[in-house]
């Protein structure tokens, strides 16, 4: 195959990977701080997608413009979820937390089923089928916009964590729970904030992904799994790792799609996940586990 | 006397460059009660954990009679005849007192009924018989310590390793424990190696004491001898003076 095809595929993969990275960021932030694995990850993103779809249908909003709306709505959902529901099981064993979130995921999926029906739906913008051409390289416009949007949101998030007082407080909680309590940080509120932020990422990612993919209620689990792969490979709790992992997985899936049978590309991701879990469970950039 | 039961020979262990135990050697005679003491940070717990198989020594050998214990897993070491207790007691909370001891007894018995039959004596000896149907989570600390010991005894060890078993006990409770161990040693010939901070217990129990300081053995002998040894006095008094 000509080199151009590979480059095409690679660039498209990287751009998609940036969006994956944004969604994985949500998962990673939540795990890094609260130490909870959000099994309702894909479902929350699907809420974001449906929200963007509805805004597109009713008001003609470009999904990218819906990002602030979805982010705020999902933030509220996430905040409430953590503060009211999840905090209650914080003291229970890991599997109980998983089960609660799995149950929440199922509730979300069935609610979406009842409201939107099982069929795939899409938001076709005017530029949905347009492409940029740079020499022989052809890139979908939607992918470029998606990638840029993802980078923008990610950048905002990273600045939040690095430069704001709340962001630093959250990082302190992640580093040392007891210490944070001792210096008087309201850890419960910060946890709720964190979950809200993680969910907001998903809302944003959902809007962006709607440009690339059709939405239906059963889409969720595959995105949850994809996010797991990314976060495990990149490192749970590492923001840069989530982004890096996203790009890596996006690129490798795209390449695997071309080199192998396209439907095998997810298998490749899972094989990678298994290997990473066994050999280096903290991922590329994560902190080593005890 | 013949061959000692336990031989600790030139054990060294470092953690990331920090020497916790340096070339420690001592022997435990069969049927003896030996105390391992030293100020905080002396390396007692590390030494103990090396013997119990939690850590692998960087160098040196540990022998139980003829068998080398180096590199064995903790469960293999238990089956070889070395039982240990934990300083922070670890009862099986959802099981009753009797069931806890049965778990230990299964190491030496073929079936559950055999194991259960064996627990009666041990529970009586440790004064837990009346509480045997209580859930372990409901026990007080002294009783949990007794349970810890009972469980270890149920594995029918030749050597019992006690990890600061007196910590947190009141003086009367300490005396009771000392009496229990003395009786055990006298009646069954059980060999005991204990780490202890509580001097009252160490002096009352031990026939032989090994003193560690900064990871090295600085003295060893009978309680009377060790108490008068200048090196030992220096290390305990010296610790206080050092700022």
């Amino acid at each position, binding site marked *: 195959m000509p080199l151009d095809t590979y480059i095409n595929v690679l660039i498209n993969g990287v751009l998609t990977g940036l969006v994956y990275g944004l969604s994985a960021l949500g998962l990673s932030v939540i795990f890094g701080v609260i130490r909870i*694995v959000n099994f309702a990850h894909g479902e929350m993103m699907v809420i974001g997608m449906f929200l963007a779809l509805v805004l597109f249908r009713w008001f003609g909003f470009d999904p990218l413009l819906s990002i602030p709306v979805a982010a705020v709505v999902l933030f509220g959902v996430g905040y409430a979820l953590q503060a009211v*529901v999840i905090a209650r*099981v914080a003291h*229970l064993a*890991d*599997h*109980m937390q*998983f*089960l*609660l979130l*799995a*149950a*929440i995921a*199922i*509730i979300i999926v*069935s609610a979406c*089923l*009842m409201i939107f*029906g*099982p069929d795939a739906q899409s938001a076709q913008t005017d530029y949905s089928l347009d492409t940029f051409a740079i020499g022989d390289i052809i890139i979908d416009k939607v992918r470029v916009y998606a990638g840029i949007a993802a980078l923008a949101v990610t950048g905002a998030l990273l600045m939040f964590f690095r430069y704001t007082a709340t962001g630093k407080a959250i990082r302190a909680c992640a580093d040392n729970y007891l210490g944070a309590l001792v210096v008087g940080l309201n850890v419960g509120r910060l946890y709720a904030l964190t979950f809200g932020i993680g969910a907001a990422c998903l809302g944003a990612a959902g809007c962006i992904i709607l440009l690339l993919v059709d939405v239906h*209620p059963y889409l969720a*689990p595959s995105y949850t799994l994809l996010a797991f*792969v990314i976060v*495990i490979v990149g490192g749970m709790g590492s923001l840069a790792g989530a982004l890096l992992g996203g790009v890596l997985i996006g690129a490798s899936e795209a390449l695997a799609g071309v080199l192998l049978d396209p*439907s*095998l590309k*997810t*298998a490749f991701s*899972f*094989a990678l*996940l*298994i290997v990473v*879990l*066994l050999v280096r*469970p903290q991922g590329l950039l994560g902190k080593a586990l005890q | 006397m013949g061959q000692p039961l336990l031989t600790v020979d030139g054990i060294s262990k470092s953690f990331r460059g920090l020497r916790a135990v340096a070339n420690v050697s001592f022997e435990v005679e069969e049927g003896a009660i030996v105390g391992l003491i030293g100020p905080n940070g002396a390396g007692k717990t590390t030494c103990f954990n090396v013997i*119990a198989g939690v850590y692998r020594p960087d160098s040196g050998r540990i022998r139980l009679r003829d068998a080398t214990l180096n590199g064995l*897993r*903790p*469960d293999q070491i*238990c089956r070889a005849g070395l*039982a*240990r207790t*934990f300083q922070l007691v*670890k*009862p*099986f909370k*959802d*099981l*009753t007192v*009797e*069931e806890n001891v049965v*778990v*230990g007894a299964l*190491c030496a018995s073929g079936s*559950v009924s055999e194991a259960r039959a064996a627990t009666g004596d041990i529970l009586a000896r440790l004064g837990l018989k009346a509480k*045997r*149907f209580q859930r372990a989570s409901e026990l007080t600390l002294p009783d949990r310590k007794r349970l810890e010991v009972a*469980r270890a005894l*149920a*594995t029918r060890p030749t050597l019992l390793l006690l990890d600061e078993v007196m910590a947190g006990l009141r003086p009367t409770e300490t005396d009771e424990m000392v009496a229990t161990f003395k009786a055990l040693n006298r009646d069954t010939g059980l060999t005991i190696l204990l780490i202890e901070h509580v001097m009252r217990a160490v002096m009352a129990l031990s026939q032989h004491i090994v003193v560690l300081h900064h990871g090295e053995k600085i003295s060893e002998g009978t309680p009377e001898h060790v108490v008068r040894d200048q090196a030992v006095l220096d290390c305990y008094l010296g610790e206080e003076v050092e700022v």
Partner: protein
Amino acid sequence: MSGLFAGVSTRGRVLFAAFLAFLIVAPLFLNDYWLAIIIIVCYLGYTGQSWNLMLGFAGLLSIGHALFIGVGAYTGAALFVHFGVPPALGIFAAILVAVVAGSIIGALGFRFEIRGVYFALLTIAFAEFVRIMVDHSRWLGGTAGLFLPVQNREGIDLLNLRGSPLMFYYIILFLNFGALALCRWLLAGRLGYYWQAIRDDHDAAQALGINVFRYKMIAVMISSAMAGVAGVFYAFYYNNLFPEQIFSVEQSVQVTFAPIVGGVGTLFGPILGAFILMPLGRVLSTLTEHWNLPGIQLLFWGICVAGIVLFRPAGIWPWMARTLRLTVRPGKDE
């Protein structure tokens, strides 16, 4: 609070006997619709028991249990479809394959010290990987599915598992309660004590001479063997297998519902959970039929599980056993 070693009171024994007797004679007065529901209930109870063994007894959270069910199903079905091997024999191959799968995952998990959530993710990854592989296997029917030859619903052919729903009813009933008896027997012995010890405190268990790896592996192997058997039943009852269905994460998650609701780590929990969730779900679904709410049953189950985790994490069985006084604590009679 675990009901593992609690004795069963006389009242409990009577109720259980009555319950079992009812189920045995039920076909005399229940129609096929309800029998089909009870079959699914027992299937859920059985697979739930198998999952329960892994988590409740060995402390391993598996979200990929569909893997073991699936490989058992495909092994039994493929041997029958391609080589004419009757399931009565094929089931042994199915068990073997399932146990091998379980052993690999278990061994990898233990050797590399993967615990908790990471182990759960490992199980998902394996299940998904196998699903995609089977999707691509034409010999196993691929995405289009593997179909067993249309069966003659009259008569009872145990060897080939061809027969009326009645036959399947008694088979799954036997499996369900047989599993209960098996687990009870196991728990009363060394395995039970050791499992409980390992689950409670890994280090203390080791210090008492327990080879933790071996006993965890035993739990994993028994659990996956049971799941493999469930797979064979599934294959021959439904007569078709689709990788998307049988290996899916949804399946794996659904396996966990009955034991969670009933009570993880308890013996009777999975069965109770199944008998609560399934009929209630079906009734709800039937009641709302004309409102056309697809997914209502799933919604109901999600709410139930969430409710249990939030308000009664030990499950319904411990509470029920306490309130109805179906169990006694040891030593009470002394």
